[in-house]
């Protein structure tokens, strides 16, 4: 791999380079779009798309359906489920035809049972799209199939919020079991050089994403030290296990409330001589944060200061807590920590992508986005500065970015899907966030699903 910094600066200086980059982005974006599997291969997807389209057509209806999805696993009978559904729908002023019909059905007890059953099936179906299984054995075949299709995975363990030490211990134990289980499972998988090798060396097949907030009940925004120490006691053995097994342990980033604790903890642990030569590990940068550039500075300084190997993998995401961050800031009268306009996030995402790619080989880079433009930009810039495709990882969320994953894999790119495992109750918060993402009027996927022209989808933000 070449050091790209200089090349990147040169490209920025010479306008011609920028023009070339833009045309490369367009070309690569079109290549990816052409490689998208046709809708016919996913008949269920188009059904989902219609349901979500219906939901996103009206704000009240969307709120009602999302609140229903959220409470569904806590309902105790089909009757209870139907009662919740109709109570939510009662708050919707203008009910589309199918909803009005559902409301009439729910007027009788057998009707409610039928409606409840149908609704439960709908929620389960929706959940299965995003959640690969209740447990690792359950999810194993899906993960294997993904691998066969040229898509690696990172497993995320869904769980209830951690409010007690026992819950933190249980989560840490699940993570450890998953690291062992995945190591065992993936050992039988066939060789896939694209997915397990870059110019720096081997990439682990077993890859687990860990949430610091689940490793301690003590994480508090105004007192980050307590939670950091407590989570550290549980994360340290996981890193040691990852090192022993040769697995990758990625630390997820959550809301800004926990960022300081998460970043501080990970950099502290990884500085320990114990972890000087492993495990493979990584962090997340959220491009929707206004100060994400400063955060990247800190992370790069860390990455450059030590001789830790393998280098940290930085996963660049837009960020999944946008509503939360904005609402919290508004309720407290704080300046919003996130960009409020989507285009600002998108522009920042591209700027950070370039900085990350320029910073190799001190770090490894994963670009996680469902936005065709953002992904095409990363690929084009990487090639423009002389990077190899093998030194850029494209990441997607299972259930949201499947088509993009298939398309990128078919072009020989390295792709990884973020695959949540867990039961429906524990998965609800995750599921609702994903549904919100998919139906947000701002979202790329929403625009894509509604048939926005490719030119527009690929336009510079």
């Amino acid at each position, binding site marked *: 791999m070449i050091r790209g910094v200089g090349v990147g600066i040169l490209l920025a200086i010479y306008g011609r380079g920028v023009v070339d980059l833009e045309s490369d982005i367009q070309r690569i974006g079109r290549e990816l779009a052409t490689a998208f599997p046709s809708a016919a291969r996913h008949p269920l997807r188009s059904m989902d798309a219609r349901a979500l389209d219906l939901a996103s057509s009206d704000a009240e209806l969307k709120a009602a359906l999302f609140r229903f999805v959220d409470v569904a696993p*806590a309902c105790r009978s089909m009757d209870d489920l139907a009662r919740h559904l109709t109570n*939510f729908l009662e708050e919707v002023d203008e009910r589309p035809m199918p909803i009005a019909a559902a409301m009439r059905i729910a007027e009788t007890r057998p009707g409610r049972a039928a409606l409840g059953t149908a609704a439960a099936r709908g929620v389960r179906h929706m959940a299965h799209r995003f959640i690969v299984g209740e447990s690792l054995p359950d999810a194993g075949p899906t993960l294997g199939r993904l691998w066969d299709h040229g898509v690696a995975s990172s497993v995320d363990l869904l769980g209830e919020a951690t409010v007690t030490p026992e819950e933190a211990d249980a989560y840490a134990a699940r993570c450890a079991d998953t690291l062992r289980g995945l190591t065992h499972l993936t050992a039988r998988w066939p060789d896939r050089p694209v997915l397990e090798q870059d110019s720096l060396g081997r990439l682990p097949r077993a890859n687990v994403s860990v949430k610091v907030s689940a490793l301690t009940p003590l994480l508090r925004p*105004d007192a980050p*030290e307590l939670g950091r120490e407590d989570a550290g006691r549980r994360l340290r053995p996981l890193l040691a296990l990852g090192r022993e097994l040769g697995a990758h342990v990625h630390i997820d980033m959550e809301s800004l409330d926990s960022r300081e604790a998460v970043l501080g903890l990970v950099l502290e642990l990884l500085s320990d001589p114990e972890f000087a030569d492993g495990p493979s590990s990584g962090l997340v940068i959220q491009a929707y944060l206004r100060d994400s550039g400063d955060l990247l500075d800190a992370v790069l300084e860390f990455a450059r200061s030590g001789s830790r190997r393998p280098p940290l993998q930085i996963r660049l995401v837009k960020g999944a807590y946008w509503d939360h961050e904005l609402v919290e800031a508004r309720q407290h009268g704080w300046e919003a920590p996130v960009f409020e306009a989507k285009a600002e996030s998108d522009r920042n995402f591209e700027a950070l992508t370039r900085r990350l790619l320029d910073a190799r080989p001190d770090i490894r880079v994963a670009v996680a986005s469902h936005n065709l433009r953002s992904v095409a930009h990363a690929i084009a810039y990487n090639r423009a500065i002389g990077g190899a495709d093998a030194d850029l990882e494209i990441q997607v969320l299972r259930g949201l970015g499947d088509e993009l994953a298939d398309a990128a894999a078919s072009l020989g790119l390295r792709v990884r899907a973020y695959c949540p495992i867990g039961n429906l109750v524990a998965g609800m918060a995750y599921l609702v966030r994903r549904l919100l993402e998919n139906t947000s009027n701002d979202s790329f996927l929403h625009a894509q699903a509604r048939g926005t022209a490719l030119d527009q989808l690929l336009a510079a933000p």
Partner: protein
Amino acid sequence: MSDLPEFRNEPILELRRAPVREGLADALSSLEAKLPLEVPVLIGSDARPGQDLISTDPGAPERTVARCAAASSEEVDRAVAVAGDAFAGWSGRPAAERAQALVSAAAWMRQRRIELAALAVRECAKPWPEADADVCEAIDFLEYYAQQAIDLERPRPLMQVAGERNEMRYVGRGVAAVISPWNFPLAIACGMTAGALAAGNAVVFKPAEQSPGCGLAVVRALLAGGVPPAVLSLLPGEGEVGAALVRHPDVHTIAFTGSQAVGLEIVRAAAEMAPGQKHIKRVIAELGGKNCVIVAADADLDEAVPAIIYSAFAYAGQKCSAAARVLAAREIIEPLTERLAGAARVLVVGQADSLDTQVPPLIEADAQARLRSCGEQAEEQGRVVVGGGSVPDSGWFAPPVVVADLPGDSGLLHNEIFGPLLSVEAVRDVEEACERVEELPFALTGGLFSRDPGTVRYVRSRTPVGNLYVNRGITGAIVGRHPFGGNRLSGTGSKAGGPDYLLQFSEPRAVSENTMRHGLAV
């Protein structure tokens, strides 16, 4: 001047950012250099210093925070007389002028907000986030009531017919005695005082004996903002100062926040006509609560557990809005109790000046003894699932307690404890939970966790409480957003920080003028 900027809540400190946290220690040291504070009796422009009482740091009782004079009965009389003389002038000023004084007082506080919070940390053992919120709320009260005073001055719409001109307006009632508690030592003192002043009353203010330093800070802010000294006197002291004010024939309004026992005594005493009294006294009382949180079978426990823990144990449960009883559907009582217990066990009990602390010491030795006794009763009468945790030796600490299976007639389920003790009870359904709430003589705050809009509607229509919080914690009312105050024996139904709070301090006057002269409507 009726163009005050639109009211906005003062933002609390963004303590999740390290540089913001780092500023706190400096503020504390700069305060400590000034301790002990000297709190005089302030009447008009006279300050009479004294060292009759001291307030101490509840976490280090050997540390004196303020030395203060205690007002004598002669001083009570003089303060009321000075206020009575000054009332007409203050009441006669345009509302905009009174409002400007409050807005300037808010600015004075804003400039010193971290040092004021530090004072609440030291004098009342409020942990930093709570102390900061107390300062913000005080600022909010000043600015919100300033706006309200201007709004209240506008004539109310009345029916008008030919030949007459009708008008109704509100004016201040006279001398208001403000008797404030220590648990929100800046906010509540400031809110009651600012409300009375905004509406055009003259105020004689008696802060809690545990927090005279904070009381003085409120008075200094208002005087610095331009409230004339004669309109605001400070009478530190113990219970008898408040009692003398309540009995005084020239006090028109009594604004009290505190215990139910004292509040009911005030209501009784205020009803007795004193020789020379020419008006019916009005009592505005915010008393205690026995606040219940209903957790329905469809609740999201991930949200309910942290919210209940915070509501019950933050500031060691010393809030009238704090959660005391959890009424949980039996389908979820087991996991809920287990998770509440696990979360309560890892609460950090410690000094208020550490950001790690969630449960600070109680305000005084009596409170510690009371909580110890409640803990023993819990052991005798119920199943203690969390209790007996270790606490620091010095300071009035009490460990968090969670108790289940208390018998229905246990005093722990019916009396306000005002400390870190939470009971958990199983109920058949939300209806039974509402019945248990209904049995209580208190009706301050209440909580509901449910994801069924039908359940929310049902509880909303049935609950007697002044403040119902749905799917969130039940403390932390915010000015202008959550008008705060209880019903039944929890208070007189006034709503602090609400759109009609100033009416409590006002009397309406209507004028109807005949405009017919010699058969001509002019």
